């Protein structure tokens, strides 16, 4: 672990938290009244970290974001949902990003869909019932859309990061 990587991890964690906070001001759940519906802006950070820093760093950012996020929001159950969804999404994206046939769009959509599935699984465990799975079809459709949107944003981040690295005298090594 280099100081550069550690610093970037901290910055990305702060960014993920800020995006999570920003998301609460976007009333997407008013348009689509389902529990757990959100844009998933933090996924931009997770996927960017996965590509730039690697899976262990992305996992660290995810864990820090989930814990600190629930400290700020004061909700313990939301920690469970974001951890279950996030861990499943990260695992799936780490595997999917090894594919040469997928772009950020496909990987991001897989992550968003797995996040929905993880959240529903956590909710099933919390409520102790399977019938909440009836929310999953619509959540999956929404996650295909939000996954493509956050994928586009992540693409922009990666292009920008690449341009930044090329400008650096050190070659942008971390």
């Amino acid at each position, binding site marked *: 672990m280099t100081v550069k990587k550690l610093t970037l991890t901290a910055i990305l964690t702060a960014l993920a938290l800020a995006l999570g906070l920003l998301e609460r001001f976007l009333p997407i*759940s*008013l348009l689509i*009244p*389902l*529990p*757990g519906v959100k844009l998933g802006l933090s996924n931009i950070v997770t996927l960017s970290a*996965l*590509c*730039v820093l*690697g899976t262990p760093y992305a996992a660290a950012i995810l864990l820090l974001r989930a814990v600190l996020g629930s400290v700020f929001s004061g*909700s313990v*159950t939301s920690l469970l949902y974001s951890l279950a969804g996030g861990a499943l999404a990260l695992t799936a994206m780490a595997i999917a*990003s*090894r*594919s040469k*046939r*997928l*772009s*950020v*769009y*496909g*990987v991001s*959509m*897989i992550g968003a*869909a797995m996040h929905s599935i993880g959240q529903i699984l956590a*909710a099933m465990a*919390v*409520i*102790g*019932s*399977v*019938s*909440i*799975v*009836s*929310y*999953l*079809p*619509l959540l*999956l*459709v929404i*996650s*295909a859309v939000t*996954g*493509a949107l956050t994928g586009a944003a992540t*693409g*922009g981040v*990666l*292009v920008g990061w690449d341009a930044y690295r090329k400008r650096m005298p050190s070659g942008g090594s*971390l």
Partner: protein
Amino acid sequence: MRTLATKPRGWDAAVAAAILLLAGALALLLFLPRASAPVSVQIYQNGALLYELPLNVDTELVIGGDYENTVTIHDGTVAVTHATCPGEDCVHTGPQSRAGRSIVCLPNRIEIRLVGEADVDIVVH
């Protein structure tokens, strides 16, 4: 640094199609066999059955817990008409009338299930 294409590729469309297909298949499996008229409304909290009420008798009750949810049964539909929980997703879910549907309040761990005459989970033809 892991290199990942930033422009969409053909296989991305396949991923989108797979997700939509999964959603469609799941929706068919969940909602089709339960099109018959529901008989009762089951209200669960923390996974335990609190009330079982007929859907054709108008009533209103308040469920306590960490927050308060007002459940209203009216004209063969059930809805959470008022809630003190943050977000109020349960209220925004609106009135439900078909068997197999449910209204959920995650903050108060309440689940309202519409149960049909034959209490089966899935029927495969």
